[in-house]
């Protein structure tokens, strides 16, 4: 792997599936790169295939055409080097927080002592160290989503795929979680592919934003975000931040005229 081989690369990914009235092309010739340690957001309207892209990158769904490469090798099935954070926390109610977090480590046959230590560290990082032995139904939505975050990281993947992880949270928790995620990312420097439909969130978190078209989804814009880190609520009043947000909003309103 050379210095400029991206950690994650999608090449001309196309996905066609059978709908009720014929074939539906969710993604068409979609290509993107995520470099090592980069935080890349995929921004797009609902139904443009963002979640499908994530499932393909995770190895859950094979593309109809094109490839996904992880550190140079083609992804044909889920890789232990990838962690996924879903839109819903998807915690198993019959397992404790800690057991939920360790699911990947167990499935991958990792050393459980080391895995437990990593899990404890990450739980502490999101402020949930005291809840390791609680059950998910004893936690609030925000807390559950934080557990989901830790679960995606606990087996130390190099790539983190996140599918609108804060969409199901209330606005205040969402803001908090955005800061938590930044903190986590800066501490661990994972490569992140972050799916969202929130412009402010994408600009706040990312090094780069990829804008997806409507279905069939393909990348139509690549917007770098060069704001300094760590970003805080003060960044929200920064001129560059707002310029980028406005640029993206203009793009979306132009083709979403009429709602």
């Amino acid at each position: 792997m050379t210095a400029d081989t991206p950690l994650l690369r999608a090449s001309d990914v196309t996905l066609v599936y059978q709908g009720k009235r014929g074939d539906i092309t969710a993604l068409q010739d979609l290509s993107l790169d995520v470099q090592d340690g980069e935080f890349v957001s995929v921004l797009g309207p609902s139904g443009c295939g963002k979640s499908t892209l994530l499932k393909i990158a995770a190895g859950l769904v094979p593309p109809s055409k094109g490839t996904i490469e992880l550190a140079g090798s083609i992804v044909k099935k889920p890789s232990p080097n990838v962690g996924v954070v879903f839109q819903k926390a998807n915690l198993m109610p019959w397992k404790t927080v800690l057991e939920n977090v360790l699911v990947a480590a167990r499935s991958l046959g990792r050393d459980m002592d080391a895995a437990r230590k990593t899990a404890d560290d990450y739980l502490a990082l999101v402020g949930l160290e005291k809840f390791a032995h609680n059950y998910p139904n004893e936690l609030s939505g925000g807390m559950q989503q934080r557990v989901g975050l830790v679960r995606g990281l606990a087996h130390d993947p190099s790539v983190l795929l996140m599918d609108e992880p804060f969409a199901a949270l209330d606005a205040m928790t969402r803001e908090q979680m955005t800061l938590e995620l930044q903190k986590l990312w800066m501490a661990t420097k994972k490569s992140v592919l972050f799916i969202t439909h929130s412009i402010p969130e994408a600009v706040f978190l990312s090094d780069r934003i990829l804008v997806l078209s409507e279905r069939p989804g393909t990348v139509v814009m690549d917007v770098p975000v060069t704001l300094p880190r760590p970003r805080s609520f003060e960044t929200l009043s920064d001129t560059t931040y707002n310029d980028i947000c406005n640029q993206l909003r203009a793009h979306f309103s132009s083709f979403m005229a009429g709602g």
Partner: protein
Amino acid sequence: MRQHLERFVYPLITFAVLIIVWKTYLGLFDIPDYILPEPMAVLNTLIFAYTDGFIWPHLLFTLRTTAIGYVMGCGIGFTLGLFIAEFKTVEKFLYPYVVLLQSMPKIALAPLLIVWFGFGVESKVAMVVLICFFPIFVNTMVGIRQADPDLIDVMRVCSASRMRILFHVKLPSAGGTIFAGLQISVVLGLIGAIVAEFVAARKGLGTVLQMAQNDLDMALMLSVVFSLAILGLIGNLTVRFFHRKIIFWEGRQTQTNTAEIS
């Protein structure tokens, strides 16, 4: 404390009212005692049956056949339900026949079972097995198939093996539905045992019921019915106890998802 008292007091009041209505009805109309005896007569018969002891061998016989048949029926139902849910090939071969058998009232098979298995314990157990099989089978199959695909994805994403997904996601997900099936099968099992005894038996509460019918001993008939209700209740409460212990994460009120009533 007050809650516990309330739980008993209200049903007790209903019971007292029932007894009063019963006695009044007997007082108002001239009902022969083989149609409806006095409440005290029923109580005396009930007490005598258990203190004298003549009912015990019959009760134990029915209990044994029900228990053995229940365990076997549920075991087979669970295993088959699991295999059909997990392996498409098994489903292709077996499923249509299962649907056919399911649609048939199993009670109608009692005479067949008597011919095949004889007059003894075996035919009764066979009936109970047959009748207990279906609720568990259907509920296991449906429960496993209805496991949240998102939770399965969580496991797939970390390359979990099929067994791991089965034990850590699918079976726990299906747990509530499976236990609902186990609860239904308790009462169905008792029905199966009694019906098989009606068809041909030498022992059991079903035979006592028939003997009482022949003697026009309504007090004894009611006593047997009451005993069966208690047996069913004990079985039901036992299953529910284990349900709450094992499926500990479910909400306060466990819903009974009925998949089949034969």
